[in-house]
């Protein structure tokens, strides 16, 4: 899959930036052992590869544990209000499309209080990277269920179990016409870094759901899929153009049966690699990508990687084009504007 080369804000000259260039002078105040540390480290590791000078980077966040992220980045940053980071990012990006703008949000911030903005920043295809740290709990308010908490989840605000079905962030993103949709996890640092880099190189809105462990209020939420011993069996790494194979022995795969995916074993019942579903992240039709979002543990391995990556004009470019067209027709001078319409003179 080839991505457009020019990343917003990137320099043409090599900058030779290091990870440490992106570390701010602020002390990181997440709980020891929090998954956020890993994400911060990976973002700081990826940025030098993008060759974007620090002044052209803006990290925008809402409210929540994840949203403290901008304070720890030695770039421009804006810690805004609950759920509204996409709106502030919209203003920044539209004002200056040459900036590389990142939205850092969480499951509560992005999908509950900020759910509306989440939808609209996706459908507009603003060229920003949205990293949603999904720990399936409200951490900063000390442990209430979140919109991604599982049904029946017992928390301080749901002592008898949550009676709400969880929302799937990837489904929302795909339904909202997002042009880049991916999933990764804090503990698989290599995969996380690669996914962040892919997102950053995508022109248009790039959304990553990052499974992130809250070791204080929801410890082990992803343990059944992310533990080293079971990871290979319980995760499916998506690769564009390749058959969907997983498992410690690389002998399991996903086959399409009608419109339903199913798990098969290669070599059993005559199943060969040729029977397996081939991943196509660039498909215009989002059906396959949506189908993959419906694969949940334990019935299926959890897909990781890029679900969808398609190219569409970006919001800020379309706006700039309209202004260009209007200006080409004649950049009105102010005097003309004020004096337009029917006028009369009083002597």
């Amino acid at each position: 899959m080839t991505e457009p080369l020019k990343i917003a804000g990137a320099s043409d000259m090599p900058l030779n930036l290091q990870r440490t260039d992106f570390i701010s002078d602020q002390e990181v105040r997440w709980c020891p052992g929090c998954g956020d540390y890993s994400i911060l480290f990976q973002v700081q590791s990826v940025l030098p590869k993008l060759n974007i000078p620090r002044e052209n980077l803006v990290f925008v966040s809402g409210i929540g544990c994840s949203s403290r992220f901008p304070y720890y980045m030695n770039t421009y940053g804006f810690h805004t209000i609950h759920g509204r980071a996409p709106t502030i990012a919209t203003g920044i990006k539209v004002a200056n499309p040459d900036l590389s703008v990142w939205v850092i949000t969480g499951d509560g911030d992005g999908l509950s209080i900020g759910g509306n903005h989440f939808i609209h920043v996706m459908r507009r295809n603003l060229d920003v990277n949205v990293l949603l740290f999904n720990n399936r709990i409200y951490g900063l308010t000390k442990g209430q269920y979140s919109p991604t908490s599982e049904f029946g989840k017992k928390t301080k605000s749901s002592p008898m179990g949550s009676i709400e079905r969880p929302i799937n962030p990837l489904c929302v993103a795909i339904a909202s016409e997002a042009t880049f949709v991916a999933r990764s996890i804090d503990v698989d640092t290599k995969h996380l870094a690669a996914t962040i880099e892919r997102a950053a190189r995508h022109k248009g809105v790039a959304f990553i759901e990052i499974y992130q462990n809250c070791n204080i209020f929801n410890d082990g939420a992803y343990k059944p899929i992310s533990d080293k011993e079971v990871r290979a069996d319980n995760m499916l790494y998506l690769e564009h153009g390749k058959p969907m194979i997983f498992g410690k022995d690389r002998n399991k795969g996903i086959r399409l049966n009608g419109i339903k995916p199913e798990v098969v074993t290669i070599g059993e019942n005559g199943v060969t690699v040729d029977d397996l579903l081939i991943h196509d992240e660039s498909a215009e039709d989002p059906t396959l990508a949506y189908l993959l979002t419906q694969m949940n543990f334990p019935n299926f391995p959890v897909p990781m990687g890029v679900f969808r990556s398609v190219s569409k004009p970006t919001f800020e470019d379309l706006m700039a084009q309209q202004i260009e067209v209007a200006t080409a027709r004649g950049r009105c001078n102010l005097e003309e504007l004020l004096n337009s319409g029917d006028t009369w003179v009083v002597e």
Partner: protein
Amino acid sequence: MSSTAILGNTEERVQELTSVTIRFAGDSGDGMQLTGTQFTNTAALLGNDISTLPDFPAEIRAPQGSLPGVSGFQVNFSSVDIRTPGDEPDVLVAMNPAALKVNLPDLHEGGILIVNENEFTKANLEKAGYTSNPLTDDSLAGYRLIAIPITDLTYNALADMNLTKRNKERCKNFFALGIVFALFDRPLEPTYRWIEQKFGAKPDIAEANRRTLKAGFDYADTTEIFTTHYRVRKANLPPGKYRKITGNEATALGFVTAAELAGRPLFYGSYPITPASDILHELSRLKNFGVKSFQAEDEIAAIGAAIGAAFAGHIGLTGTSGPGVCLKSEAIGLAVMTELPVVIINVQRGGPSTGLPTKTEQADLLQAFYGRNGECPVAVVAPSSPSDCFKMAVEAVRLAVTFMTPVFYLSDGYIANGAEPWRIPQLSELPAIRPVLRQDPTGFLPYERDEQTLARPWAVPGTPGLEHRIGGLEKQHRTGNVSYDPANHDFMVRLRAEKIARIANFIPDATVEGDPEGDLLVVGWGGTYGAIATATEELRRQGYRVSNVHLRYLSPFPRNLGDLLRRFKRVAVAELNLGQLDLLIRGKFLVDTVSINKVAGKPFKVSELVARCKALL
């Protein structure tokens, strides 16, 4: 006074009048707003002073013929300087029984009443709640009733045209307009030009409208339904080039102008809401000025984007009405904390909640002052008339970028939709706006301050060496780092308040109209200026020692306001709410004021203000 023209029915063929108020009223689908606007445009082009009051229902098409569906447009035109659309119409055009029922109580005694008698059917009379036909039961004896079969005459005028009945009927407002043009000796050419512009692509519709307009004019001119015609001469306005402008148009032009003066692009984030949407429409058309207009998914996104744009170096502007301000409150607090130049337009309407969407009110003043959590001071300005919207928009931007602060701009439904002549300013008359974008990284601290204004530097992303983080958490003085230190918080709260207070050194003093001392000072703010100034002028003419002061800068108040108040025996605060400015003035100046209120969704009438003031004298 503007509303007491005596439309005599004399022997003379033509009578000169100083000023006349006409109200066009009909069903909300009858095109009354258009009819009134056309009459206004012609009056303006002839050099009259004008002031208008559109009054329409919130429903786009309320049930036909019903009382809530009545739409009205009042215009006062004059050969002298006027400031209000007139208290009582001298002429009422009522296109159906409901329009008559709703508007007759306002008609001047002995006024001219033109009705479309075709619409006075049994069914329509019932819908309007009439038990007998007022055209025949003598109940209108106190007026000069002129009943004309406008619908029939419109059909007759278009008899040979191949148009649907519906399309023919839609021309009847122009028949009525033609009648009124004849009554006041007005030319048809400006309206012809408008028809050509509007319907040029549909020649038959254009022809039908032209014909109907002419037919109405000829009918009134030749049938001698009016024995007397009236003439209102040019007004003696200050020299200059003029155009007619509504408050919303002037607001849009003002902000574009301010951005040009400041040399920064304008970003406008807005969510459609009555009565502010016209500003979004106007600014969306001005892309050739580089205006970035953004129709957001909701009110919060609209201001969020404006804040983001301000952070990135644009003039951040958002516009709405009261209910939208409620939703923006938290974000306004963020803009206060992050000290970014954002202007919030509130075209106030009747509240609370959804309230009266298309009616005017001034009940959001305390919301602008205090409607946020924490100690959260902002600057507040309020234009005083449709054309003043231009000036105050420029002022709002000047204050926002000079002080790095959110500024509230409180317009209202009355001046937003009302129109008056606007003397087009020369660019050289406009104030300089000189925002400084920080470039030099040496010694840069995001919350260091200008000694005079206490503004922090405007350091926009993309500038090397100024990378910094801002947010809603309390800031440490100078560094801008997150700080929970008690003493720092106390200091910063006072500093933010002091910054707003210092704006008083950068705005004009308040001026008294009338003597600088006397028996009564009437204090007003925003869109009530026309009615208050006209009322106190009238009282002075009658020999009373009454003056008025009108506030366009509210937070902070002009420095001299306290002194002005103390020179009068009594101070009355007149406003379209239950005493919000009154509360602020009492609290700030310890003056025992009297509150003159009205919350009817309508502007003050001059006559009611005169009466209320007299009661205090």
